[in-house]
């Protein structure tokens, strides 16, 4: 990880006027070397004078970076982290409390076909779907009382990612790279990994909204195994030696131009950007190449695409990437309307790798400052989804979307381990104890990263916008 990359001072030596340097520092709120990763803002916001303020955390955050494991489609809480034995008693019968209105019609109580058991010192119960994750349960805070607004994928994905269900707003990763920049100038600050295509709502999930475009997530299709296919334009056509000579010529020509141009700060920054790009080629190539991992690490994560992309996520945060979002797959893999047994396959694909990630981060001393988030855009109903011939669903063995109550978990990065927070009702339908709305989760994540969510704003269209809009409360009980 190079937080302080060498300047190629022999090649592009120059002495910019001090005014310019101060200006740069003011605008970026960071060291000059880090500048090129951050945009030079010329927009409305820069002039409103708040950009520099936002470019620093409000207080030292315990978490420095985030891995968000996004189980898109909506994993079921009563089959994973929120055991509800009472469902057995009512199996096949109506819930005495009645069914809440969700996207589709649901029927009788539907107990989980998966067994739960206690793990760790904390004795928190986890289902047999996630045995590897469960081994780290003492590092995990399970939130059993998550709440979203609407039982549909599209608005809920946007709510979870951007804090707003419909209108185009910046995603959490964009806010954080905007606020903190990247620790590594040679890699993008916000990376979205998803194998085989895009999730529902596509690139809107990692949009930068009204923030500068550079803060949007860089999408990587982790279906590919070759590095050149993973990252656009990363491979030099000329080869390293010829490209170096070409860039030296460029630097010399640019330097003459700069000397004639009053050492304009933008010109300088652009000169530097070529040097950064040159270094990025080798660093990014290396970061995405999991074959460089020793065999025992590869074994620990296991086989398959999920293992590879979760390992890539670790390699990225290790190199200072601020926000890595790991999507389970294109569309909405966890959307088990028809048959909850699909959950078993999905969990098998990722459980070992997620368990390995937690242990691996811990062994490397990275877990303390890396926040790991697991969850979907909502959960699923404890009642069975009624068969719907209109959309080709006949099994009556699945569950509908449920935004009234669902589970997510956090680990590392200043989170208290080995606890559960809040609770759903006795059947797992609605959060009844200490409900945590998505806005509250965002407020808490920003807090862990060192931001007061009410003061972390960006002026746009006449108003100061926040990730949490006018909502959100930090959930103090989750903090270590």
């Amino acid at each position, binding site marked *: 990880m190079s937080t302080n990359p060498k300047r190629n001072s022999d090649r592009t030596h120059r002495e910019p006027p001090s005014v310019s340097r101060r200006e740069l520092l003011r605008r970026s709120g960071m060291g000059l070397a880090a500048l090129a990763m951050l945009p030079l803002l010329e927009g409305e916001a820069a002039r409103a004078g708040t950009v520099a303020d936002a470019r620093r955390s409000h207080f030292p955050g315990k978490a420095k970076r985030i891995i968000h494991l996004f189980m898109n489609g909506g994993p079921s809480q009563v089959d994973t982290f929120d055991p509800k034995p009472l469902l057995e008693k009512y199996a096949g019968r109506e819930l005495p409390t009645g069914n809440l209105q969700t996207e589709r019609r649901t029927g009788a109580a539907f107990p989980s076909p998966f067994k739960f058991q206690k793990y760790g010192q904390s004795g928190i119960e986890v289902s047999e779907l996630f045995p590897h994750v469960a081994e780290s349960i003492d590092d995990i805070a399970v939130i059993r009382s998550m709440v979203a607004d609407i039982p549909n994928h599209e608005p809920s994905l946007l709510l979870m990612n951007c804090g707003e269900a419909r209108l185009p707003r910046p995603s959490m990763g964009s806010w954080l790279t905007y606020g903190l920049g990247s620790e590594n100038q040679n890699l*993008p600050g916000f990376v979205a990994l998803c194998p085989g295509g895009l999730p529902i709502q596509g690139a809107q999930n990692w949009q930068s909204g009204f923030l500068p475009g550079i803060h949007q997530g860089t999408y990587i299709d982790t279906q590919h195994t070759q590095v050149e296919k993973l990252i656009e334009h990363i491979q030099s056509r000329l080869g390293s030696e*010829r490209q170096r000579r070409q860039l030296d010529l460029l630097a010399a020509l640019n330097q003459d131009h700069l000397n004639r141009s009053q050492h304009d700060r933008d010109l300088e920054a652009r000169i530097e950007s070529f040097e950064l790009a040159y270094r990025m080629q080798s660093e990014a190539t290396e970061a995405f190449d999991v074959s460089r991992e020793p065999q025992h690490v590869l074994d620990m994560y296991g086989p398959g695409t999920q293992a590879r992309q979760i390992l890539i996520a670790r390699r990225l945060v290790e190199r200072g990437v601020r926000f890595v979002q790991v999507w389970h797959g294109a569309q909405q893999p966890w959307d088990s309307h028809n048959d909850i047994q699909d959950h078993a396959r999905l969990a098998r694909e990722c459980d070992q790798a997620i368990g390995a990630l937690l242990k691996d981060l811990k062994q490397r001393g990275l877990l303390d400052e890396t926040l790991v988030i697991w969850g979907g855009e909502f959960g699923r109903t404890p009642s069975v989804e009624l068969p719907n011939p209109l959309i080709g669903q006949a099994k009556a063995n699945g569950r509908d979307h449920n935004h009234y109550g669902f589970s997510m978990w956090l680990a590392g990065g200043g989170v208290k381990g080995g606890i559960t927070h809040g609770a759903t009702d006795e059947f797992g339908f609605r959060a009844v104890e200490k409900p945590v709305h998505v806005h509250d989760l965002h407020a808490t994540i920003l807090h862990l990263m060192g931001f007061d969510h009410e003061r972390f704003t960006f002026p746009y*269209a006449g108003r100061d916008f926040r990730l949490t809009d006018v909502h959100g409360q930090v959930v103090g009980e989750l903090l270590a």
Partner: protein
Amino acid sequence: MKQAFWLGLALTVLCGCPTEVTSQEEREAAAQATNAGQTEFFESRIRPLLVEHCITCHGSQKQQSGLRLDSRAGLLAGGDSGAVLDLAHPRASRLLTAVGYEDPDLQMPPAPAGKLPSAAIAAFSTWIEQGAFWPAGERPGKPAALASDKTHWAFEPVRPRPIPSVQDRAWPRSPVDYFVLSRLEGQGMTPAPDADRTALIRRVTFDLIGLPPSDAEVAAFVDDPRPDAYARLIDRLLDSPHYGERWGRYWLDVARYADTKGYVRLQEERRFYCAFTYRDYVIAAFNEDLPYDRFLVEQLAADQLPPGTDPRALAALGFLTLGRQFTGNKHDVIDDRIDVVTRGLLGLTVTCARCHDHKYDPIPTADYYSLYGVFASSEDVIFPTPLGKPTAGAAAKQYESDLAARQRELDDYEPKQYAALLNEFRSRVADYLIKAIAGREPPQQPLPKAAGEIRQIVVERWIEYLERTGPTHPVWGPWHAFAALQPEQFETAAGAIIAGWSTPGGERQAPRVHATVKSYFASDPPHSMADVARGYGELLAQVHQRWQTLLASTAAAGSGALGRLSDPDEEELRQVLYGDDSPVAVRPLEALAEYLYDAPINEEIVRRRNAIHQYLSHAAGGPPRAHTLIELPVPCEPRVFVRGNPTRPGRQVPRQFLKALSPGQRKPFAQGGGRLELARAITSRDNPLTARVAVNRVWEHHFGTGLVRSPSNFGLRGEAPTHPELLDYLAARFMEEGWSIKQLHRWILLSHTYQQGSGDDVLRSRDPENRLYGRMNRRRLDFEALRDALLATAGRLDRTLGGPSAELTVPGANRRTVYGLIDRQGLPGMLATFDFASPDAHSPQRYTTIVPQQALFLMNSPLMADLARAFAGRADLKSLPAGADRAAAMIRGAWGRPASEREIKLSLEYIAREPADAPADASLSGWEAFAQALLLANEFSYVD
């Protein structure tokens, strides 16, 4: 002592604003006049609870759910969900429900603070039972001090400004210069030396047509001895068809142009396949110098202008229609339209007022919904509108017959299904009314429906309809009377209501009750609201049946169309189902978008419609088409949505223009929905914003910064102009002389100010942001100019004008960037990397970021390799000997100026170390790599 301090603090907090704190004496005097015990109780028990637990969210700073608990007035007013106090039934007060945690959806204070101790809850209970005493003489603080909007510069009328005097009378070349120079002189500064002619032609050429000048054009201008050489250059560039491509693209940023709808659900077509006709309209409007006021009117209301005008103008409506579609959520679509109109044309952030009054500008929520009503009174057409007739010839014939065949397929099916759908709604009124009694449901995304399933959308329409009618409505008055009854006493009270109808003499005062409704309920008194619903359902089903029978017999007899039922009583009932504002009168497009048809029918209609769409999207021989909109037969009567929530309609507001921009009494819009009237209000000479905003945008694109540096926010939180008199001078003259953008360019470009050089160290240190325009700003090419210049330099640019959008990222994509396909759901990485305007919403200005991803693209992308090869392979360059001459010619070709000796030397040294032969792999030869370096250079990407 401690207590007194605490009280003072509490008051300060409660009132928010220290100047409004009632003095301790005053308050005490007031308290003495009331029950001293109550005061004591309030101050010692209740106020501390309010201060500690409530007013952070329900006080002067925040008013969650519209509720304030820092004054008795606030307490009595309640919040968005209604009253919080019920002094008649204290125990039923919502405040007690909330603090008692009696309702899982209403628990205050919320987590994590959690439920109050039981003593505190008991205190609240006692307090409310005793009448919720509050000490007299307290007023709440204002939420936020509203700056004086009366004197805000941007709301003042535009006034012609006298030209100021200057000391250096020799310097100014145009009126603009006097304004600029007088401010510079005021600061003791002098303008920068002039740009040389080589720099000037490069600057003005990029500025006006977005392309670099050719070597020949540079030479011709540099050597032109005529005194008006520069003015001629400007005329030539303004006459170029490429001018519209450059300036039209700027407008497309304002208009958040894209070729796709954003995220769409299920089977919906994701492309606006005729969006390009709007883009071409915009380009043509700039090229033809369409007066700006006319340009705006056409974009807002071309469909309502007198016929006989150029049909191409209909394409202008793309300004409204081509926004993100928000998966069919009409409220968001309208919000987007209000935003593009108000920020784009007026520099006002009106959408802030969707949920609450604008916090800074004089824009109340009512104004937002006035505009909402205007846009909700139109509907986008289903099939893009043809702009003119098909051309003659075989292709056109084929087109007409192909299209007619597909249209028949649809016409044979959809109208029948549509009629059946309405028949279903009209026959099942009882079922819908019973659902309506249960009230509104949270909005759901539409999904396919099974046969017989109740359509919630129609239920909502019934609820709205019932709200519109009210207790005096002859048909629905009884409904409202029954609905007001408590279920326990329903039967007795209903009997009394029915009896009241036949009380002798009662009819004189009471509103008329429809005779059939009256006799129906009199003969069979209802036991519950469900009975009432069934009763109305039966009556309406009967009249529906009668009308259908009559229609069928009339049709069989071959007589003319029926207008109405002859019995006025029957006709009055029929209007409920067939009138223009009937709750069941869903429009065909609405029926489809909201999945009102049974799922298989819905699918079949969409299939038949898509066959037409697909044909139109690539049919040869047909006329161009445009995404237009049309007025609805009945305009929307907008209501304010409480907190922006459409399930909570509040008071009705007229469709009318913004109060802040309407001198004197406002006249509600009267022509249909009022779009044309809105357009006229925006382009009125009295409107203080439109011309200023336009002039500022043009200035910004010439200098890199606007005179107002928040180009889409001229409100109280926007920036004040650096040169207010100049802005007004230009705006006044712009309107005076016919809103000509090309004239505006001339006023600016012919100024000495514009012709200054960009380099001046002294001025840079004194005015680093160049707010006084004592030099030209050095500017980086935006993405379009960069890509177009690369293509032009490589000799690859395809200069074809107009036509369908083309993918930019495929090999061999050589059209100008303005013709690129803009997919707002999947904007190519190349565009996002180079700061292209987000097509999600109106874009005030581009960011200028400098990041290594841009460098990586320029260094390693296949496009750049291709262009480097093409540039090095240009016949005029390749024919030169591979040495100094060729290097010099390439430098001139890339940067538009002669090469220096040192540059030639560096270049030749570089070439000498490169492999002599062209490499066999996908790599570049030495000269090609050299060509690429020139394209990567700052001098290529920046304009002085």
